[in-house]
């Protein structure tokens, strides 16, 4: 009996699965696809800043560490799923998956078209509530804030691909139906796992830092490093399973720790030493789950670098170890990466069988390098300054770490204190910038301007902060001059020219607004931003109908524009239409649920409606998000005053003044007498 000829799909699949190329080329293909996605995502989605960030270091970590590791972890989990469902050879599934992964290139292109040039913010799911809402993902008429349309297309294609592949391999309907369910589960888990891990300390009773701070800051300066560590851990777990199934010899080699003990021990001692050294200044080090993952991953990386032998054949084992180690070392930090590269060179240049002095010297060097690498996990760029406990370098670094965590946590008074102490030891531009930002957040524009002007080589953030401080004190010509000089120096010209247009609009200067807007268009300002700034101009000049029309056009281009909704809300507010204003602020809140200014506006509307309970709720929520805003306490004081609780009102006004001594409304309010009961 003749077997039926395979269909065209089977033949295509077979040609993909049997395509003959080495492991390294397959890996390069996967990395190429991921990098294309990342580069175009940075250009088209979110803030549309090419490279994701104006800072090369941040951008580098996002494009070459965080996001690739995210997709590689996905790849491995999908690989395992398909293996368990089909029983096919891992190498054949991997080849198909690499081709299938091309769907990840689609979202930036789909989104830029659907959003009419604005792109979407692609974020991780923040909590279980968002996770549960994700099941509405398959409703094609609903615009979900948790995902973009491109992501939906990408995920639907991935799920469809899973069904197709499993069915073609097994002809089993149950398994074919299980494949997309498991795939979607993996996608959801990956979408929420970073924020879920960051919530662990809070669930165990640690509330000094928010989960957002833990995932953003911690020991690292760049948030993507924390994310990278999580995905490295997931890669390790999935990778071990895969190797245990398909490459037992490599698995045995990787899990045999003994040859590395003489280097793992000094690395562990280095980590402990760093931990002890930083603990007095960064006492919260034990409370972050990411630090434990970091230690685990860093020690395993030392082991992998030690056993990675470029002369081993087949070379696949070496490539696996080398690739993991390279990604891991880069994620942990440049000093760690440099030290491990040195370790690798010394390890592979020495002659292990020689019994001469050079071999002993090489072993001693390896022990020393391992120790330093361990220490660098904690002290990062300050490793060589702090490793010998003379001077105050450890304190200098530790206080900056603590200051940075307070800063991210919006505890600006505490952050200011830490940065000041670090400045007393040794000042640098980074510390000056953060001190200036703390002052500005606390409403103290005078000291902010003073210290920001001392920065010798101001970077993008320093310029932005100083200009903000000028703007808040009404020094508009200085603000514009600062932005113009930055633009002349080619520092984010698009950003700064748009900022000037925004300032001009908010000051009602029609001619200059349009002049700057015209130049901003040449720099690629998104259409919605163009109309939103026009709306701000009309609003400022009291032309409310024109303002509303402009905001509507902005929202036509970007239905998720928080600034356009807020502008439209303010427009209604000034016209006295509080109900519609409230509706617009509520709409804005859907896309920016942590926007304290929106809660303040909603509170102000409730206050005008004399709904004090609701107003109290909004202002309290606003303060919970940003506790350092004088306006929030002042508004709560107004409620207390309106409900006849004048002593509480005065206490709240004083609290507002404690945050910002220059806050005039609170000073005026305090002049009223307090009645004793």
């Amino acid at each position, binding site marked *: 009996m003749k077997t039926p000829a395979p269909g065209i799909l089977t033949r295509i699949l077979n040609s993909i699965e049997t395509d003959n190329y080495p492991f390294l080329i397959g890996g390069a*293909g996967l990395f190429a696809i991921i990098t294309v996605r990342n580069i175009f995502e940075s250009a088209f989605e979110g803030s549309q800043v090419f490279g994701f960030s104006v800072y090369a270091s941040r951008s580098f970590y996002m494009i070459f560490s965080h996001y690739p590791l995210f997709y590689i972890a996905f790849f491995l989990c999908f690989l395992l799923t398909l293996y368990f469902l089909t029983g096919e050879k891992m190498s054949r599934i991997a080849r198909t998956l690499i081709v299938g992964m091309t769907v990840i290139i689609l979202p930036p292109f789909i989104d830029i078209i659907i959003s009419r040039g604005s792109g979407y913010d692609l974020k991780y799911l923040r909590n279980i509530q968002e996770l549960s809402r994700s099941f509405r993902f398959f409703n094609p008429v609903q615009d979900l804030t948790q995902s973009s349309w491109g992501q939906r297309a990408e995920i639907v294609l991935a799920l469809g691909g899973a069904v197709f592949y499993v069915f073609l391999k097994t002809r089993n309907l149950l398994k074919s139906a299980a494949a997309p369910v498991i795939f979607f589960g993996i996608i959801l888990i990956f979408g929420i796992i970073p924020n879920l891990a960051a919530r662990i300390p809070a669930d165990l009773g640690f509330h000094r830092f928010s989960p957002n701070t833990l995932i953003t800051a911690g020991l690292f300066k760049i948030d993507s490093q924390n994310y990278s560590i999580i995905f490295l851990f997931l890669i390790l777990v999935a990778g071990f399973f895969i190797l245990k199934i398909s490459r037992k010899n490599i698995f045995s080699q990787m899990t045999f720790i003994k040859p590395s003990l003489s280097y793992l021990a000094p690395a562990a001692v280095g980590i402990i030493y760093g931990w002890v050294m930083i603990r007095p200044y960064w006492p919260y080090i034990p409370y972050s789950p990411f630090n434990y993952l970091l230690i685990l991953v860093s020690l395993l990386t030392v082991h992998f670098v030690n056993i990675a032998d470029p002369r081993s054949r087949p070379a696949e084992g070496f490539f696996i170890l080398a690739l993991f180690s390279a990604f891991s070392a880069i994620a942990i930090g440049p000093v760690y990466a440099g030290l491990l590269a040195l370790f690798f060179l010394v390890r592979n240049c020495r002659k292990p069988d020689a019994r001469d002095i050079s071999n002993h010297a090489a072993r001693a060097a390896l022990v020393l390098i391992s120790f330093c690498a361990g220490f660098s996990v904690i002290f990062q760029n300050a490793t060589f300054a702090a490793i010998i406990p003379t001077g105050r370098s450890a304190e200098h670094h530790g206080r900056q770490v603590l200051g940075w965590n307070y800063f991210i946590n919006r505890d600006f008074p505490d952050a200011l204190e830490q940065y000041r102490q670090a400045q007393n030891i040794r000042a640098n531009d980074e510390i000056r910038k953060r001190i200036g930002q703390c002052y500005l957040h606390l409403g103290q524009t005078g000291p902010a301007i003073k210290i920001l002007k001392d920065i010798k080589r101001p970077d993008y953030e320093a310029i932005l902060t100083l200009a903000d401080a000028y703007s808040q004190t009404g020094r508009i010509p200085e603000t514009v001059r600062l932005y113009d000089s930055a633009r002349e120096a080619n520092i984010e010209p698009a950003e700064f020219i748009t900022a000037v247009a925004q300032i001009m609009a908010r000051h009602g200067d029609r001619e200059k607004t349009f002049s700057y807007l015209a130049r901003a268009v040449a*720099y690629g300002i998104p259409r919605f931003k163009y109309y939103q700034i026009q709306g701000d101009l009309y609003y400022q000049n009291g032309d409310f109908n024109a303002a509303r029309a402009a905001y509507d056009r902005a929202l036509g281009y970007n239905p998720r524009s928080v600034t356009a909704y807020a502008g439209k809300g303010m427009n209604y507010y000034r016209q006295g239409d509080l109900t519609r204003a409230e509706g617009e602020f509520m709409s804005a809140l859907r896309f920016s649920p942590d926007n304290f200014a929106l809660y303040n506006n909603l509170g102000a509307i409730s206050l005008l409606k004399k709904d004090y309970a609701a107003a109290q709720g909004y202002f309290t929520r606003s303060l919970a998000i940003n506790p350092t805003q004088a306006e929030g306490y002042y508004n709560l004081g107004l409620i207390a005053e309106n409900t006849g609780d004048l002593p509480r009102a005065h206490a709240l006004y004083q609290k507002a003044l404690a945050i910002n001594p220059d806050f005039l409304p609170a000073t005026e309010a305090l002049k009223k007498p307090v009645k004793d009961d």
Partner: protein
Amino acid sequence: MIKLIRFWLYGSRPFIALHYLFPTALGVFIGYHTFNKPVYFLPCALTFLAVFFSFQSSIILNDIYDIKTDAYTRRATPLTSGGYSRRSYLIWGAVFLAAGLIAAGAVGYRIMLIILLGNILHFLYSAPPFRLKKFFPLSVIMLASGAVLAAIVGYAIYEPARPFLSFPGKAALFIFIPLLFSLNFRDLADYEGDRRDNVSSLFTVLGLNTGRIVNAVMVFLSYAAVPVILGYPPLFIAALPLGLISCYFCLKKPFRERNVFIIYFILVVILTVLFNLKPGIVLTPVPR
């Protein structure tokens, strides 16, 4: 090294290298005029070097994976003629890749990202697991996109923050559409090798004779499209005759790639003069 230069000078490679540098120069020209800034000589020179080296590394990658096709068509490359071993040729590729990225990195991180993107697209085009050159018309779309990318990298010297979104659409079309129509002619010489290696091209899809005619028509259309896209009808005076001559060279046997390139360069020279006289032709007017 001298051996490598000798191989490099063989065939159409200097022309193709120039072909990639033209869009970069156009990108610089657009950036310079749009933002009214001075010509940044050093960054521009480094960017040209980066594009050049990046293209060289792509050629090496292509030669490595096209070794079978090149052997069929008797195309002389350092590999098919035995001048280089695969390994040493690959090392040269890595050196060029690194040189391109270093030169781009010296201009700026974002310039390096664009150059890297170009290298990645060439990798996806030439090498497995994707080897997109096997899929017509995706192969031509990728080559035309590569030229647009070369223009964007020149433009990004002036506008690094949103180069993909702010690059004028008209200029992008002006590069992309004519190249999409015309680049098929490069597959004509590889017809036999492509057929044996299962690489689909205009000629393997339509057959050699029909393919030649369609290719000639498309090359003519690519010339005719230039004045249409630029919205400048006087340019037809130059574009139509050049299109016809190019069409003739595409049909003439034996086919000589070099002749088509020479006509193309004549158009480029005319456009260079025209753009300098009337920059508004290629620039998108800024709305007020």
